[in-house]
């Protein structure tokens, strides 16, 4: 098997070397093509020979269950799923012992005696489920029983008694840490030693064997409910097609199975398509939100981009993709550093963002049912790579599934999409919730158009009085501090775009309670009008809502007020924009 891998590798290296020579001798190309296709055939045949359905192995387990059940006078049934999943023969062979051991554990420790099960309200016959399935380029095998589960406290007691941990440490451990104690050597929960299990050389051997195959193992258990053991087997012993990407001058291989698509965000579109939700940065991609991760950040590498003039890798200046350049005029774009930057030079700079080289390359990766975008600097070709398992000294690097040797003879790391998603703590739930919310909003919006329900801004003058003004009659809303208000005669003004803007208190024009006088920061509504230059002072912006109630008109009201209604548990006075403008004009003496 390894030789087949080496053959492919050698072929790749040979092809690359020959490409430089092919122009001298055209026959070389033909020979190479021949070798190329034969190698591919051999490789495929060998892979086919090596791949066997996991069912062959799982079927053997039925007999183990039957025999043991009889021996222990327990009732149990084995359910197998995913028999057709194919695994490398070498892995299957190595898997036989650990799986048998897990099944023995289920029966001996997990499944209770029939009368005990009856007392616990379970069916007398225990169920053991074994299922195999593919997930993100890995094969998962999950063994579940509905037995008594692992009691974490009992396990802790045993561990303390046998001196594996001390009481101090025990107190600090989480439930899952406690359960995972069972993977340590010398620990068994069985009360008496039988010839089936209970000799304390159980789960640690299973774990070691799985790790020898390059996989890992997780245990979940609920006392009284059952235990689940999840085995993840990686893509070792295989030749896998991979996408080669570049980050900070280094190359990485991403297994093709976890790549869903490649997206290129045009430099000019970045600020429109990328936004921040909480801590996460997301890309809007065809109606859905895709969390983005920058590979350079994950790997603590320098962020770079390829400069369009020099074609050199330049350090990236922006901190966040969602940042717009124009918000950071002083950040120094760093690429042209000649003298003080003139405004027109800056506009040249932004041209680069329209340029191809300012584009952002995103590889959309699959992790289980979730997708996320991995931002890389460069996208290269696809290459068939031979997976080399990571040595134990670098095993802690969860972002990598292995290493490989590229056709130029250098080592490249193989990216593990699951590891990256875990490491960057992507909050898929949060983002899909936001997505849901937006979808709902989308579906709601057309209705409002049909119903022609105007949106209004609800605000306060005195805190206990609520007013509403149609949103489409408002030009701007400015936040202002009391120190920025200037008094001139009986009138107050604020600086608005370099001019003095006269401000009107609502009580000056309407019969309402007075504006609170102790307020530090408040708002100014600038109404939409052609012939009036004024702002209305309001103390607090309450909300923006759609008017979904009938406005009650009573004849006694003031000309500036069109009516009132109860909304959101408040009595809201609706201001008539036209009437209000007229009143303001009268107040200012411009009518």
């Amino acid at each position: 098997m390894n030789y087949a891998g080496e053959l492919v590798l050698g072929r790749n290296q040979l092809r690359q070397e020959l490409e430089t020579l092919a122009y001298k001798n055209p026959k070389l190309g033909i020979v190479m093509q021949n070798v190329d296709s034969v190698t591919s055939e051999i490789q495929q045949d060998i892979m086919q020979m090596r791949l066997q359905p996991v069912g062959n192995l799982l079927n053997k387990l039925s007999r183990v269950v039957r025999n043991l059940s009889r021996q222990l006078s327990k009732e149990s049934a084995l359910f197998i799923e995913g028999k057709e999943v194919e695994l490398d023969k070498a892995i299957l062979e190595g898997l036989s012992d650990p799986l048998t051991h897990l099944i023995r554990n289920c029966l001996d420790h997990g499944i209770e005696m029939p009368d005990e099960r009856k007392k616990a309200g379970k069916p007398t016959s225990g169920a053991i489920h074994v299922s195999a399935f593919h997930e993100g380029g890995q094969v998962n095998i999950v063994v579940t029983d509905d037995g008594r589960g692992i009691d974490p406290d009992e396990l802790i007691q045993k561990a303390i008694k046998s001196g594996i941990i001390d009481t101090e440490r025990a107190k600090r451990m989480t439930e899952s840490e406690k359960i995972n104690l069972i993977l340590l050597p010398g620990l068994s929960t069985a009360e008496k030693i039988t010839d089936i299990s209970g000799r304390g050389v159980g789960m640690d051997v299973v774990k070691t064997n799985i790790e020898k195959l390059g996989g890992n193992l997780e245990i979940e258990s609920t006392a009284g409910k059952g235990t689940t053991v999840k085995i993840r087997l990686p893509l070792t012993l295989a030749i896998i097609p991979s996408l080669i990407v570049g980050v900070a001058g280094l190359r990485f291989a991403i297994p093709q199975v976890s790549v869903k698509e490649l997206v290129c965000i045009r430099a000019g579109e970045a600020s429109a398509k990328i936004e921040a939700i909480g801590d996460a940065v997301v890309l809007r991609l065809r109606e859905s939100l895709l969390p983005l991760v920058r590979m350079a950040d994950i790997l603590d590498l320098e962020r770079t981009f390829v400069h369009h003039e020099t074609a050199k890798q330049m350090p990236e200046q922006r901190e966040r993709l969602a940042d717009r350049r124009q918000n950071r005029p002083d950040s120094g774009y760093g690429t042209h550093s000649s003298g003080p930057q003139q405004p027109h030079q800056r506009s040249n700079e932004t041209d680069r963002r329209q340029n191809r080289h300012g584009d952002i390359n995103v590889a959309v990766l699959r992790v289980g049912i979730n997708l996320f975008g991995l931002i890389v600097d460069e996208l290269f070709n696809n290459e068939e790579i031979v997976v080399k398992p990571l040595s134990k000294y670098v095993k802690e690097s969860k972002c990598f599934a292995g290493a490989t040797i590229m056709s130029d003879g250098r080592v490249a790391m193989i990216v593990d999409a699951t590891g990256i998603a875990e490491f960057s703590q992507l909050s898929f739930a949060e983002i899909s919730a936001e997505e849901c919310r937006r979808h709902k909003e989308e579906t709601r919006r057309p209705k409002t158009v049909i119903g022609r329900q105007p949106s209004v801004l609800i605000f306060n003058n005195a805190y206990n009085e609520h007013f509403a003004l149609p949103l489409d009659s408002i030009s701007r809303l400015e936040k202002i501090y009391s120190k920025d208000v200037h008094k001139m005669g009986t009138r107050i003004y604020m600086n608005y775009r370099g001019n003095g803007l006269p401000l009107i208190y609502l009580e000056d024009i309407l019969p309402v309670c007075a504006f609170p006088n102790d307020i530090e920061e408040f708002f100014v509504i600038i109404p939409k009008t052609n012939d009036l230059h004024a702002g209305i002072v309001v103390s607090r912006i309450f909300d923006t809502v759609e008017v979904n109630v009938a406005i009650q008109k009573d004849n006694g009201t003031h000309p500036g007020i069109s009516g009132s209604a109860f909304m959101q548990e408040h009595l809201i006075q609706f201001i008539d924009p036209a009437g209000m403008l007229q009143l303001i004009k009268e107040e200012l003496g411009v009518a």
Partner: protein
Amino acid sequence: MSINQFVTFRIGDHLLGVDILNVREINRILDITPVQHAPDYVRGLVNLRGQTVTVFDLGVRLGLPPREITSESHNVILKNEPVGFLVDSIGNVVNADEAEIKPPPANIGKIESEFVEAVVKQDKELLVVLSATRILEYNGSPKRRTVPKNT
């Protein structure tokens, strides 16, 4: 009386050595691919005739500053593990009979004493014999920096 042989090399001013029986080969494959999130003493991976070998920065491992790669730099590849030590330069093979091999003194410069197996007195200086096994023994977790959440 048996004769022991040591492969010697230098890290900074230190003359160091390992038992020749632990060494597979010495080479100058210095095209090292770094592995992010690995322990700081792991310099990276190299391709040794189709096999990936983990290269340790022996300087960092011994508590010294990281080594710079120069024209004298070499990898000392171990026999039993696919691991190489990146060293500043390679010295001679030193023969020493058992009587010459002394237990390590309490204090040997700046080198982490836990890695020192023995010392051999040479004409001018002291050869510090390192224990390859102890250097390989995995201890301490890798440095994991938190990722900035903004991307």
